[in-house]
């Protein structure tokens, strides 16, 4: 239940906020809510698969944070803005 609420908050953050850092934080929130759900269901089922997967997710999220923050920094450096709406060059 808590994980669903956290996931929704994270998703809303991603969709509604314009600042890339905040959006990024939303993404992290969604990942962690998913982790919470994994661990919870793993405990309910009585095995450790859920915990193992949560550990993997954390690992991948750490790598993702590195790449994501680097991208955001690079974009900010060139465009003087951290808004996701300004970075709209990849279009038709």
């Amino acid at each position, binding site marked *: 239940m808590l994980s669903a609420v956290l996931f929704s908050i994270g*998703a809303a953050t*991603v*969709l*509604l906020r*314009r600042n890339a850092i905040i*959006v990024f934080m939303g993404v992290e929130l969604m990942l962690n809510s998913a982790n919470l759900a994994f661990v919870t269901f793993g405990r309910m089922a009585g095995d450790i698969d859920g915990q193992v997967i949560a550990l993997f997710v954390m690992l991948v999220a750490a790598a993702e944070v590195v790449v994501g923050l680097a991208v955001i920094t690079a974009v900010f450096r060139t465009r003087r803005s951290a808004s*996701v*709406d300004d*970075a*709209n*060059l*990849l*279009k*038709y």
Partner: protein
Amino acid sequence: MTALPTTLAAAGPGAVSAAASGAVQERAWLLVALPLAGAAVLLLGGRRLNRWGHWLAVAMSWSAFVWGVMLFASLHGQAPDDRSRTLHLFTWVPAGNFQLDAGLLLDPLSVAFVLMVTFVASLIHVYSVAYMEHDPDRRRFFAYMNLFVASMLLLVLADSYALLYVGWEGVGLASYLLIGFWNHNPDYAAAAKKAFVANRVGDLGLTVAIMIMFATFGGVTYTQVLSGVDGASEGTLTAIGLLLLLGACGKSAQFPLQSWLGDAMAGPTPVSALIHAATMVTAGVYLVVRSGPIYEAAGTAQLLVVIVGAVTLVFGAVVGCAKDDIKKALAASTMSQIGYMMLAAGLGPVGYVFAIFHLLAHGFFKAGMFLGAGSVMHGMDGCVDMRGFGRLGGVMKVTWLTFAAGWLAILGVPPFSGFFSKDKIIETAFATGDGARPWLVGSVALVGAGITAFYMSRLFFMTFHGGQRWARDSHPHESGLLMTVPMVVLALGSVGLGGALAFDDTFLNWLEPATGVAHEEDPVIAAAAVQGLTLALVAAGVALAWARYWRAEVPVTAPAGNPLTVAARKDLYQDQVNEVLLMQSGQYLTRSLVFVDNRGVDGVVRGTAAAIGGLAGRLRRWQTGFVRSYATSMTAGVIAVVLGVVAVRI
């Protein structure tokens, strides 16, 4: 030539030893090869042959004639039943089960043709040496003439329909090249194209006929086809007969494909004499006679041959009455005379003999008259309008005399050659069939003879008699010996050939092995009455022409004339009919096909491309570049999937 059959008949077997005759026959391919070599040398030899090239062509033609005479003599030395011989030359198309050999068929019919073709061609070659003297392209002219002779000989000597077709196309090609010989004149070039296209229509019939023959009889040699006739159904034979008739109509300028012959007069006059009077245009008659057994087994096709002949014979005669161009009047007359031959060829074995007989006689007198017309044109500086002639008999005595011989021959005045052939055709027309048919066909032929007498006399009187209508300052003169001698020889043929061939039924007996035994039946009215009627009609025609074109003054400009005259001057609107029925509808068809192609076929292709392009243009609007809108659509998609899964579970 005139006395040839009888003298050789007298000389007979003793003159030619058996071994020599075999060798002569085995080398019959030389007949085709000699003129062909002449054509090749002249065409490839270039300018250095200009001085003597024409004599080479003349020599080739004469040597073909000499070989033809030897061939005739050797065949004549054999028993009548052995006179048909097939010569295997080489394997032509070896394709699996389909074996086609090129071979020559020597039999009385083909040899009769060979003699006529080579003799008339050789005379006309001699004539042309003088006639074309001032033409810069004389060498090319003679090359084409030799090519024509070679093709014509191949046509008549072929032992299969396929090889005949080669010669058939060869003469068509030579005809095209020679009609358009002066192709710097667009009208002449157009006339050549017209002849070619009209011939192509006929050739289509011949092509399809050959295909049906192959499908039905498994081969296309005369032997295979004509011996297989008994086993084939009448429907197939009728189809073959009609298609062959179509081919014959194209080549022989028979109704409804006759329109090209008048325009074909654009060629030099020797060409008109050789190709469009004496030889090539009679190839259709040869084809029908050669395919005799097919027509005998298919009554409908045979009847149609008669009808085509009858219609053309009247058609040509009517047109001939109105033409003022001397060559076009002669062309109309040719058409009409070939109509006679066609009619005879549709009357069964008796008719075949007389068709070929008339063909030979016609070859002589019509070629003679054409050469006469050429001589007149030569003397009158190329003028062809008969209204500008008149009283030329006095200044061109030889031309006048030779033309008179041809004129009397075509009229059928005894004892000139036309009498023996044409009267026999009329009699046979009265004797064949039952019910109203002999009456109908016979009277058409009879009336045709009367009209022929009128228009030929008109031509003769307008040119050589009556008042002088040419200007004082033009100096008509007799042509040189090179031109007059061939004319004299042909005139002698017009006088004596008929009698010589008809004497003691020589020609009839000669052709019998090739055409089948002829049973002459009695005409519905007595033969003497038919002859009397014919001569009376001919006399009436001549008298009418005399009153109108000799005694009366002929106006220099053509009078308006009655509707029939006006129509006849325009070839009875044949060109217009062709234009409306065939050309315009053909153009309409091509236009509509182009329209369908542009709008239909191209439309589908281009439409598909345009639709995909447009769709892509719409779809790429989705790529806004806004990350959050992508995220929204992803979320919406995920939610939709989840809802879907849940919905399925529940």
